[in-house]
């Protein structure tokens, strides 16, 4: 039996040494780079230069913690179309830690995480999916003997920015629904000194997750967000205002029972419980799974999954939202909160309040950005 060091990739070993030992010579690598150089019209002499450039290329390190969750958010990212998940993993980012996809296991991946965090201190993006259970010292989610809270605090320390992906990571989602048996909370309740973007949804649309990452890579800063930390490029509009069935709402044409004649004519689902009037989400615009369809398009009412506490405020899912009227689109953010009644309307009210308190939020947001962190645009909308 050979010793582990004869096979394993060891830190400190150069890439050339490692692959030489695996039968890929430095010469082969430079030869490959020379082929690329010729293909690019640069001439064969540019090969070594390209080889050096390729070796020194740094893709942004992404550390992805999966805490108390169902892995639905990772699955959603696997469905992204442009960039594809293959492009994301091989060309755009260096996903240095992620339970679902990593080849190694146990101590080996924990070591990989530690070295990636150390090598990219202050620069890596931390993605968190899943909530953080706080009851009984955090024993309800433990990885490698350490609690979710311990792990997220450690990873946040050197993160440039945090993406709280999915409803769990932002406010706890289904685990935090009444009576929240494990004391599940979101990242914002644990980490107060790093910019956090909330990619809302249960799960969020995969393209929204990757677009936020690409926004950060392309523009060097996180996207502008609303009061709930949701990027405006995706969550600025209510479902109700972009809904393909909106004309039927305005005309008073409602589905009264699933699969009735009105359902077969694509009428409005408000009467069977649609939460679209109280939900800020890109569903009708971006749609799901390479723009194939979206929940209302498939005849099911919106359950409001991009809104905080929706498991409690939007249920029963088939109950009607109270007092939804027809609002002029241009006034909606300021007036809807007052027009809607209690319960499920809370999400809309919060969004309306967000606009009223824009100045307060701006001041608050400024405080949350560490000096070394990326800029967060203000919501001026």
């Amino acid at each position, binding site marked *: 039996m050979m010793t582990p060091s004869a096979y394993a990739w060891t830190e400190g070993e150069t890439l050339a040494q490692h692959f030489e030992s695996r039968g890929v010579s430095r010469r082969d690598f430079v030869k490959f780079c020379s082929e690329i150089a010729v293909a690019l019209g640069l001439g064969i002499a540019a090969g070594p230069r390209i080889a050096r450039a390729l070796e020194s290329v740094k893709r942004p390190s992404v550390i992805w913690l999966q805490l*108390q969750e169902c892995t639905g958010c990772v699955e959603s990212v696997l*469905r992204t179309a442009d960039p594809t998940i293959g492009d994301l993993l091989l060309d755009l980012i260096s996903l240095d830690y992620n339970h679902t996809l990593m080849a190694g*296991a146990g101590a080996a991946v924990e070591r990989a995480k530690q070295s990636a965090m150390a090598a990219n201190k202050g620069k890596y993006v931390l993605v968190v999916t899943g909530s953080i259970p706080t009851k009984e010292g955090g024993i309800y989610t433990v990885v490698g*003997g350490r609690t979710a809270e311990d792990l997220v605090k450690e990873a946040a320390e050197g993160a440039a920015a945090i993406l709280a992906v999915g409803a769990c990571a932002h406010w706890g*989602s289904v*685990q935090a629904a009444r009576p929240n*048996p494990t004391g599940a909370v979101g990242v914002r309740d644990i980490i107060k000194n790093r910019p956090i973007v909330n990619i809302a949804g249960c799960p969020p649309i995969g393209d929204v997750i990757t677009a936020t990452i690409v926004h950060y890579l392309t523009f060097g800063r996180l996207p502008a967000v609303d009061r709930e930390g949701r990027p405006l490029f995706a969550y600025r509009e209510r479902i109700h205002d972009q809904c393909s069935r909106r004309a039927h709402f305005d005309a008073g044409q409602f589905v009264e029972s699933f699969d009735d004649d009105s359902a077969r004519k694509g009428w409005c689902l408000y009467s069977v419980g649609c939460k679209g009037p109280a939900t800020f989400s890109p569903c009708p615009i971006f749609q799901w799974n390479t723009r194939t*369809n979206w929940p209302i398009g498939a005849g099911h009412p919106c359950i409001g999954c991009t809104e905080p506490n929706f498991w409690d405020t939007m249920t029963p899912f*088939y109950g009607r939202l109270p007092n939804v009227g027809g609002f002029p689109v241009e006034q909606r953010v300021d007036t809807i909160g007052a027009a809607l009644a209690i319960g499920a309307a809370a999400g809309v009210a919060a969004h309306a309040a967000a606009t009223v308190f824009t100045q307060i939020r701006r001041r608050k947001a400024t405080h949350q950005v560490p000096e070394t962190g990326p800029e967060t645009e203000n919501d001026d909308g």
Partner: protein
Amino acid sequence: MARTRVVVDPITRIEGHLRIEAQSENGKIAKAWASSTQFRGIEIIMQGRDPRDAWAFTQRICGVCTAVHAVASCRAVEDALNIKIPANANTIRNLVTGMQFIQDHVIHFYHLHALDWVDVVSALSADPAAAAKIGQSLSPWPNNGEAELRAVQVRLKKFVGTGQLGIFTNGYWGHPAYKLPPEVNLLAVSHYLEALDWQRDVIRLHTVFGGKNPHPNFLVGGMASAINLDHPATINAERITDLTGMITRARAFVEQVYWPDLVAIAGFYKEWGAIGGGTPNFLACGEFPEGDVRDLDTLYFPRGIILDKDLTRVHEYDPQKIREYIHSSWYEYEKGDAVGLHPYEGETSPKYTGPKPPWTYLQDETKYTWMKSPRYDGRAMQVGPLARMLVAFASGHRDVRELVLEALGKLKVGPEVLFSTLGRTAARGIETVLLARKMEQWLSELNGRIRDGDPATFTKEKWEPKSWPAKAEGYGYLDAPRGALGHWVQIADGKIARYQCVVPSTWNCSPRDAQGQAGPYEASLADNHPLVDPERPLEILRTIHSFDPCMACGVHVLDAEGREVVEVKVQ
């Protein structure tokens, strides 16, 4: 060689959080402990809620085999309220569940399991022309050409050249247990990437009927997607055409890429047909009702029990014989740890007695996991594709027998290899092939009924709570990709009074019971299982991944302190 205590935590490429502790001696594993280190408490969250909402909550148990908990939940509520769904709704659920199996199994093979058998680094030194020759000998798949494989290798070299190996960092590359030639490794890596694109395309079937994936929408009483060929906002000719394309592409990839790869790779690892067997008892609750869900004669994959690896006899499955035990689990029962409870009387109060985190070891504790131990008639049972295929094989299922015998013939091995790590992986492929063929039939049945003027997808008869009895209870089953799944619901005065799930992962990952019976993960690792290098536990990953672990399934009812719990007296 001295005894070594091996800890693998996290086990990656699974859903959720799983820890394996093992004792290894002289290159073998002597004993193993499997621990699920996460608890979410979804069943208590269900209490007091509208039963028609239950599918949405329970669906969030798992986002990987998404949809299956939702369907099991709808079936449980429909069973309790005696709702019979329209034939179209059943067919649509079969199509959705069927595509879930197909997509999930292929993702499992390439993205969660393959790296246990495929050495990515070795693919760098492959000869693309030779790899193409091998690929073309396996199937007519058009992307197995030299140019395609060379492009993949170039991309891989460029990736490696950056020095940032990302998800491939610290894999066990070069481990002596890797046996594939570089060319087969390259072929597999190429299909790893292709499968990423393929899965995104074919799962859109969920989006047509359920609006999104993961977590498509369902409906108690049927499906919400209305059918009207003459309307742009419903299931119409354009949607049906889209579905047809997805089903065709799903079948092509399964028949021309997944299945040939699986058989080819298995050929290099035949010794794994004698490793990782473990538990000799198998349970299948049956799936794909082609008629009413209660008519068990219409199940495509039959229901049944195999005991002591005896394929000459299939015993009847009776859900009344299920009991859950907590001898090794962090829970307490009112009547003590020795009793077993049927899900209709399920009682689950967490009582953590493990070490205070951060901790180092769990195997020294009597209780060491959040998983309970479900037992069938007192026995530990293995569930999943192998259980389903064995029950079908032993029941004389024509399609299953044909494919099982074909695979055994190609590998030149006997049926005894089925009880193994390799057997579990092969069984998963076999059922995927069968379902990929079945999808066309289901779609054609749906089309036939639409043509004959039956567009119904929902029954509103028992929709309103005022039409329900004061008390009701029901059982919903679904033999999910990872194995037998059961939801048990009790309804009182229009609300959920008690909700219990016994899931594939609790069957397979169950800890030791009071009789000392280990669950399937633990038993399979302790079954004369190799572990050459405790520092690089590749063999443990092979066997554990062959079960396709999904730990978030292990949720149970929690009687949280100070919260009102709706009480119901079970008659």
